[in-house]
Structures are given as C-alpha cells and as structure tokens.
C-alpha cells in the first residue's frame, strides 16, 4: 500500500474520508469497502475509512449499531466478510498469528468489559503489555508508577482486579492500553463508568497522547465528552447508522 497523495476531507460517493489533512500521509488503519455479517445479517456494509497518523476520532451510533464490531475489525479480532482491513499498510488477512501479535503491540485497546488477569495485582496487569513483549519491568518501573498515578490508581497497585470498581477497571484498562506508547489507541466506551472529573482526566491523557502523534479512536455515547475533546483537539466524529459509516454533523 502506498501513500494517498493530498488527503481530501470527504469523497462521499466512496464513503471514504481521509480524516487528517496533510501531505503524503499513510493510514495506520484503513478499512476498504468492508462489510461484516453476523448470524445471517449484515452488521456493517461498505465501510471505508483511513485513520491517518495523529488523527483523533470519535465513533458514535446507537447501541447495537456495530461500534464494537468496527473496533474489533480495526485490531484484527474479527476479519471482514467482504473488503479489506489494513493495519500499518498490511492486509490483516495476510498476517499470521505471530505477526498479528506484533501488530497488536502497536495498538492500545480498551475493551468495554475491561478484561484482566484476575490472579495478578493491578500493577502487573497494567504492565502486562511490557511483560509479554519481553521488556525489562525494572527499567519501566518509574513509567508504571507515573502512569498509575495519572489515572488515579497509585494506591490500588496491589489490588486484584475483582476488588476494583467499574471506574477503576476502566482507568486501569486505559493505563494498560497506553503503557507501550502504541501508535494507535482504540477505546470502547473508556469513560462509561467514571465520573465527569475522571472522564476529563482520561480524555486529557488521550489528548496528550494524540498531541504526541498517536492516533486515537474512541467509541462513545458521551456527547459531552466529544464536545470537551473538540475544544482541545481537532477531532472528527464518525457515526454508524444503517450499517454504514458516516461523518457526523457539525452540531457535535
């Protein structure tokens, strides 16, 4: 896959957006005429989008519209029934399991249900991406402490995941997603269980990462969060409606 030349804002007849203006940008994740069917019905249809480096997106849509499916397609947990998903210029279908693992080290993922290893303390769970990639935890200790402090969990470092509240789990999941300083952060309702103050803090973390050049895609219902983000960063809002991906209106 090569560059796209000068990116344009919208090519409606192809349902295709290059969401960040710039010169000769490549997509970190690209969906090309993607469809996904589940249980006999089509959940997503003809979805095309390029997520360029450093872009910030929100993904909205009614419950069951396919937001989580969209995110899963982006990191290879699901493969499209039609079309092509490319991550870092490589077709997901062509990745073997090892290559898929290496690709995921470049993608920070925050699941809606925040899965953890329940037998490990919170700090070890947050450091898990470092552990599995063979990084020296002794050297990363300071970063881990700082990150836990940033998400307000420094006093819960030794707690086991089942002992955490929903909000604490979400903050821990976000910390785990960003600890490897990934190129892309995909978050599914990352502020769903936290109060306004904490959601602003988490948003701040994502905005800071975005300013460092990270690509961010957040699936959320929280319109206030989107408005708050748009005051800080150039964010695009996408909406899934009737199985298709659309650019949301300016009212957001």
């Amino acid at each position, binding site marked *: 896959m090569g560059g796209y030349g000068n990116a344009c804002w919208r090519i409606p007849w192809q349902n295709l957006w290059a969401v960040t203006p710039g010169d000769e940008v490549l997509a970190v994740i690209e969906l090309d005429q993607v469809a996904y069917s589940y249980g006999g019905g089509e959940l997503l249809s003809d979805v095309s989008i390029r997520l360029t480096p450093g872009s910030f997106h929100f993904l909205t849509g009614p419950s069951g519209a396919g937001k989580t499916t969209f995110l899963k397609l982006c990191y290879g*947990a699901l493969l499209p029934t039609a079309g092509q998903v490319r991550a870092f210029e490589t077709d997901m279908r062509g990745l073997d*399991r*090892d290559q*898929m*693992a*290496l690709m*995921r*080290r470049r993608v920070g*993922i925050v*699941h809606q249900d925040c*899965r*953890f*290893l*329940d*037998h*490990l303390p919170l700090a*070890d769970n947050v450091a*898990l*991406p470092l*552990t*599995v*990639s063979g990084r020296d*935890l002794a050297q990363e200790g300071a970063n881990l402490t700082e990150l836990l402090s940033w998400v307000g969990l420094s006093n819960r470092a030794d707690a086991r995941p089942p002992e955490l509240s929903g909000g604490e789990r979400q903050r821990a999941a976000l910390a*785990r997603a960003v600890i*490897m300083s990934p190129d892309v952060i995909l978050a599914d309702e990352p502020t769903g269980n936290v109060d306004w103050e904490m959601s602003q803090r988490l948003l701040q973390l994502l905005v800071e990462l975005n300013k460092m050049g990270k690509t961010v895609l957040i699936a959320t219902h929280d319109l206030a969060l989107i408005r708050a983000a748009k005051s800080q960063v150039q964010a695009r809002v996408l909406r899934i409606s009737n199985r298709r991906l659309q650019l949301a209106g300016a009212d957001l």
Partner: protein
Amino acid sequence: MKLIVGDTQADRVVPPTGFTARLTLFASCAMAFLTVFALALSLASGRLAHRWAEELARSATLRIAAPADQMAAQTEAALAVLRQTPGIASARALTADEQTALLAPWFGPDLALDQLPVPQLIEVIEADPGYDSQGLRLRLAAEVPGATLDDHTRWRKPLVDAAQSLRRLGWVSILLIGGAMAAMITLAAQAALAANHQVIEVLRLVGARDSYIAMAFVRRFTIRAFLGAAVGTGFGLLGVLLLPSASDEGGVLTGLGFQGAAWLWPILIPVLGALVALLATAAAAGRTLRRLS
C-alpha cells in the same frame, strides 16, 4: 534453555490451577512408580536370558542310571570317557550333598538319598570350541550303557525365549505407561487451556505471541510432571530396595531389581516424564491456540 531457566514474569501470567495441577502430579508420580517396576522387570529378564543362555550353552549334564552296585564303576567309566573327549574343559560327579540340594525344593531338606534310586549326575563344562555331542553319545552308549547325555538344548531355548519375552513385555509396558501418561497430561493441559481461555484472550489482546502463551503452560506442566515423576521414581526405587535380595531359593522373582550401573537407569524416568509432558502440552497448546484464533 528458556524452558529450564524460565521467565518469572511469564510464569505468573497463567494462574495456578487446581485440579489439573494435582492430576498432572498424581499421574506422573503413579506412572513413574510403575515404570520403575517395568524397568526392573525388563532389566532382570534381560540378565536372566543372558545368564541362562551363557551358562546353559556352556554346560551339559550326564545322567547315569544304573543298579546301585554298578553306579560307582559306571560313573568312573563315564568320567574317563569325558576326560578323553576333546572339547570338554572339565567333568565332575555331583556329590551326594549337591544332589540332595537339587532335590530339596521337591522333597525337603532331610532327604535320605541313599534310599532312593536317584541317578548320579555329572556336570560337564564345555571348552571352546565345544565337543561333538553326537560322537560322545555313541561312545557313551558303547562304554557306559546307563549314561544319558543332556546338553540342555531341549529346554534351554524355551527358557531363554521366555526370559526375552518378559524383557520385551517390560519395554512394551514402559511404552504403554509413557503413552498413558502423555494422554493424561494432554487431557489435563487441554482442561487448563480451556479453563484459561479468557487469560489467553487478554494475553493476545496485549500482543502476546502464541509461543509465549504456549511456553507459559508447557513450562508449568513440564515442571509438575518432572516433580511428580521424581517422587514416583523415589517411591518405586524404595519398593525395589525393599524386595527380598536375590537368592537361589527365591528363583526368578527375587532377582527383580537393579544391579550395578543399572541403578542409574531410573534417573532417566523423571527426565523422560518431563519430556513426555513437554511434548503433550506443546501439542495440546498448539491445537487449542489454533482453535481459539
């Protein structure tokens, strides 16, 4: 090497599981215990087959059945013939005590041999090369009419065959034990992998390679199998040590056990147990991870 040295961080990502851990330990312990006895049986049978083949091939028995008043004369005549026969290293008549000892298992120790019409036995030891048994028989028939030469060929072969069959049986048993152990550890590993599918999902989500995930399980099962097999081998060796020591009275059964350097063989059992566990778990992990992808 990584399997032996380990990775303390990687080891912790798999939760310590209950029943699969106990099943692996118990299965490897029991199988190692049985393997010790199968190995002892196999080695003892091998020794017996070798000894019987060696001893019986080199010896023969001359039996003299004659009236009591001619017994001494015929014995002397037979010994004279044997001394003159090329290929015979030595020949000697068994004493009355030796003949009594031979009959003791059937008649008891206080046998009055002189009251029974027991033939005189002469032990013949073959030289290398051996003697012409057909020629010796003809000469004995002419000079010692009551003499019968038994070169043991009639029952040597079935005995050696039986011992060798026992040895084969021992090795087959060891293979079957290894197979059963592999099957049990495979089941335990599959159960552990299935119980930890959520752990596998999380590990994949954060970028763990399948080899990393598999290694965490393989290492755990291999260590458990090694420890279980070491304990089982220890108990098995204790059992062998407590067996009665080898004696002529006990026959074959008391010869079960290890002799000399053969005591080192059981050391291999925990190592082989660990190897079986490693292969079984690696195969189970590979299948499960492929299925879950």
